[in-house]
C-alpha cells in the first residue's frame, strides 16, 4: 500500500504533450475561497447534489449538457463515457459510487439531515471556465435559493 497521491495535473499535462498538444490546460485557481458555516443544525438542513455526469435517461445521444434533475427519482445509470475517470481500474455501473442520492435518502430517514432538495444538478465538465462561471454556477445557485437548499455536495467524477 502506498500513501502517495496521484498528481493529476502533472499527469494530464504530460499525457497531452505526448499527443502533440502544445498549450497546456489552465486549471481554475483561487488564492482565497469563502466558507459559509451551517446556519442551523444538520438535522434541519436541506441538501442537494451537483455532479459532472448526467442520467442516461436524460441524455439526448449527442453531447451531454447542463441538466436539472428530479431528486425524487434515483437514476438507474449515468452517461459517464466522456468524463475523465479511471476506465481501467474501475467502473461507474453503481450510481451510488459517485452520486450519493440513496445514501442521503437513508440519512434523511435516520434524521441526520433534514432532507434532500427537490432538484439536483448535472454540470458536465466544460473546458470553458467562462461558461461555468457565467452560466452554470449562477443557474445552480438561483435554483438552490428557490429550493431553500442549505448545503450542496459538489462531486466531480
Amino acid at each position, binding site marked *: *500500500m*502506498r*500513501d*502517495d*497521491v*496521484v*498528481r*493529476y*495535473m*502533472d*499527469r*494530464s499535462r*504530460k*499525457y*497531452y504533450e*505526448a*499527443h*502533440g*498538444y502544445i498549450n497546456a490546460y489552465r*486549471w*481554475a*485557481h*483561487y*488564492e*482565497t*475561497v*469563502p*466558507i*459559509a*458555516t*451551517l446556519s442551523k443544525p*444538520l438535522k434541519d438542513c436541506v441538501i442537494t447534489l451537483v455532479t459532472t455526469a448526467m442520467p442516461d435517461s436524460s441524455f439526448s445521444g449527442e453531447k451531454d449538457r447542463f441538466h436539472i434533475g428530479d431528486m425524487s427519482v434515483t437514476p438507474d445509470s449515468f452517461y*459517464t463515457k466522456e468524463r475523465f*475517470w*479511471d*476506465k*481501467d*481500474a*474501475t*467502473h*461507474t*455501473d*453503481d450510481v*451510488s*459510487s*459517485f*452520486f*450519493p442520492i440513496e*445514501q*442521503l435518502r*437513508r*440519512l434523511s430517514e435516520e434524521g*441526520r*439531515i433534514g432532507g434532500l432538495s427537490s432538484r439536483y444538478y448535472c454540470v458536465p465538465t466544460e473546458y470553458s471556465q467562462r461558461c461555468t462561471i457565467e452560466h452554470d454556477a449562477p443557474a445552480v445557485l438561483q435554483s438552490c435559493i428557490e429550493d431553500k437548499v442549505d*448545503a450542496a*455536495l*459538489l*462531486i*466531480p*467524477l
Partner: protein
Amino acid sequence: MGSAKDIVEFCGVARYLFTDFPLGNPCGRPYDLETQEGIINAAMDLLESATAPMTTVQTPYVWDETSEWKDNYMKVDDSNRALLLELGRQRMAAQATVKKR
C-alpha cells in the same frame, strides 16, 4: 467530495473530503455499502465541523494493496509514446476538418 486532490486543492473549495480511490468512485467502491456509508457520513461530519475555508479531510479507505492504478492512469512511457502521438495527430486532423466546415 472527490479523488483528484491536487486539482481540487489548486482550485480551492470551502471543504474537501478526499478519498484516495481511482477517479470515478469518489463516494465509495461500487456496491460496497459499508464504504459508501462511511464516506457520506464523513462528508456530513466535515460539513458540520469545518470553520475555515480550504479544509481537507481524507477518509481512511484504501482501494487495494498494490496501488498499481496510481502508476497506470494516463501513463506515458516507451510502450505507448508512438501510439499516443499518432492518436493526437488523428484527433487534431479531425478537429481541423470540423473547423473548416
